[in-house]
């Protein structure tokens, strides 16, 4: 989907969320990506999720690296500050930003080139530090901006548009994220908007490093037979392990729990997730079982989607570092500068 220019006039019948905002308030500029690009569907899902959660658009900071996916933060949440940084380095910028103001909501948008190749190191370190944010990789297996070379997430044996086979082992960002200590790890598909919107909402509610690997077919360079990241392939091989039935905020709720069909996970900060089990043997809080399941199903050529790992006792970087409750960017001289008396003591110690 490519956006067309829309008038700013709000139709009176447009639905409003609890803050009184409509979808329009969460939209951005017109997308310049190819018509039919999976990334535009992800932008639409993000808009939907932020709208449904009734989050104030201006309290969101959008960060990205370089690539097709990294251009997209300009296409949603037009009232939010955005930062299109350098290739593969969004995670460090997001880490610094998060520490400077722990009160904002952070959304990082990256691609498989940005996060699995040049930025693999920063990707891993952000997750292990537990930066409180949603990190989305719009994963298409190719470098779209430079006309379709394989990326590091392309499956071995996957065919390029010109017919060449990929010989290198793929990097599974979901498996890596789990190993690196991400506390919310999911995979989705840009062609399954409902699943994606629910996962985005749950991830935004999660306190800690949330990661969504979203398979997002490149209609220009990776949507042909032989590709394992095409719309047709992912539709045929999508194995959803669960579906989010509802997310409850920090207030206590009345649990509607049917053993065997649903999993309830209450998180450290009080939020509650109810997951409908689609694969009966899947427990998203069991790390090693999750990894084993992922590897087993990947070997069968399946694309496992859903909430794949959740650490209920998750903490975030600010909490781990005992950062003061007031955002650091709001502290002034009186709160930061120890003053001349303290300096005299330091002088005395240096004598």
């Amino acid at each position, binding site marked *: 989907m490519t956006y067309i220019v829309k008038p700013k006039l709000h139709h009176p019948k447009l639905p409003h969320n609890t803050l009184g905002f409509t979808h329009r308030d969460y939209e951005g500029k017109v997308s310049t990506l190819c018509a039919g690009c999976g990334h535009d569907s992800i932008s639409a899902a993000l808009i939907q999720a932020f709208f449904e959660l009734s989050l104030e658009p201006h309290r969101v900071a959008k960060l990205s690296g370089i690539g097709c996916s990294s251009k997209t933060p300009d296409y949603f949440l037009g009232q939010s500050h955005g930062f299109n940084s350098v290739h593969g380095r969004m995670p460090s910028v997001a880490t610094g930003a998060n520490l400077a103001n722990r009160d904002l909501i952070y959304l990082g948008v990256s691609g498989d080139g940005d996060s699995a190749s040049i930025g693999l190191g920063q990707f891993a370190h952000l997750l292990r530090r537990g930066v409180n944010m949603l990190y989305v990789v719009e994963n298409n297996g190719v470098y779209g901006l430079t006309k379709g070379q394989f990326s590091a997430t392309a499956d071995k044996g996957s065919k390029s548009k010109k017919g060449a086979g990929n010989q290198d082992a793929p990097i599974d960002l979901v498996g890596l994220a789990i190993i690196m200590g991400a506390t919310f790890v999911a995979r989705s598909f840009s062609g399954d908007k409902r699943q994606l919107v629910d996962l985005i909402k749950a991830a935004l509610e999660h306190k800690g490093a949330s990661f969504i690997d979203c398979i997002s077919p490149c209609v220009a360079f990776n949507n042909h037979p032989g590709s394992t990241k095409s719309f047709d392939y992912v539709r045929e091989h999508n194995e959803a392990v669960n579906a989010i039935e509802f997310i409850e905020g920090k207030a206590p709720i009345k649990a509607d729990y049917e053993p065997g069909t649903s999993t309830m996970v209450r998180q450290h900060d009080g939020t509650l997730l109810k997951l409908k089990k689609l694969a009966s043997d899947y427990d998203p809080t069991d790390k090693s079982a999750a990894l084993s399941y992922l590897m087993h199903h990947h070997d069968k050529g399946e694309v496992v989607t859903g909430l794949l790992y959740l650490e209920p006792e998750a903490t975030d970087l600010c909490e781990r570092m005992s950062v003061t*409750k007031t955002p650091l960017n709001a502290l002034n001289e009186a709160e930061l500068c120890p003053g001349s008396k303290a300096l005299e003591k330091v002088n005395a110690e240096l004598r």
Partner: protein
Amino acid sequence: MAEAFAGYCRRFRADAEGNSKFAIVQAEDELAAIGMVIGAAWNGARAFTATAGPGISLMQEFIGLAYFAEIPAVIFDVQRGGPSTGMPTRTQQSDLLIAAYASHGDTRHVLLLPQDPRECFEFAAKALDLADRLQTPIFVMSDLDIGMNEWLVPPLAWDDARKYDRGKVMKFEELEAGKDFGRYLDVDGDGIPYRTYPGAHPTKGAYFTRGTSRDRYARYSEEGPVYVDNMQRLLKKYETAKKLVPAPVRVDAKEPTRVGAIYFGSTTVAMNEAIGTLEKSGILLDRLRVRAYPFTDEVIDFIRSHERVFLVEQNRDAQMRTLLLDTGQVDAAKIASILHYDGTPITAQFIVSEIARRMQEIGRASIRKVVAS
């Protein structure tokens, strides 16, 4: 340096509940370190990182982003012997050029040149102010001699009336009042635009920060005139920086002389001692200690008003000379480089013998004649 800072922070920056009014991250590498600084500064907090030459090499791309997207950043460079791993436990002043022109494309950065640990303290505070004021990376160019040896300096001092200069930030009230906000709009004619912090206002002041070319309202543009307009404004900002950086310190010889000496950083102590020895042998020098790049007019005037200027540096390639010549306002023939770069701190003896030898070569008598005329 980071460990020392962490120690002071734990002592002086705990809130009433014992939580930290600071955040220190041991980054995985230099790229991440400067990225975090830029992210924090973009979001309205003051931030710095400390490194040495190899770290500056690694940070190049991000420094270019901070320059072009106009994000404050403070970088301490404790210079050591390069290139490559070079002499990692030895001192040099050989990162001037890589810092001054860091990153691809046309860039120029502000360098502060402290002479000792006391000035490192002063320039640290100054650098944070300048970074916010100029919205650009600021380098504090220390070296391994200052950074790792014991120094005797006057006590550190702080004026409790001093306020942080947080620069031009448009807050909620001004946005609400309808003040025009263009992220790269030169409202005051000094080349420095106004910025907003993320989350400042529900409907006004949001913009998209990018390393790509954009217009005055932060909209992506590859139009030639728009790009040139922006690059010219950055030059104007660089001119503004000259008015804000620490001025050089000039000390004239006890009698008029047409010979001068320029030096900077940790060379100062050796220079001070050398001057006394040279005076005893009849060589009088006016001295100028450069404390910052870009150079203020005093530096250019000093060279213009002397027939010969010894430029003392601790690197092989006379990097400060290159920076001076690049101003286009300095006669290259006047500058005689005194270069010490074996990794040990420069000594008074070295300076004395080098200057005395050069003076002999050009003929002390003729200089006396010049001085007398």
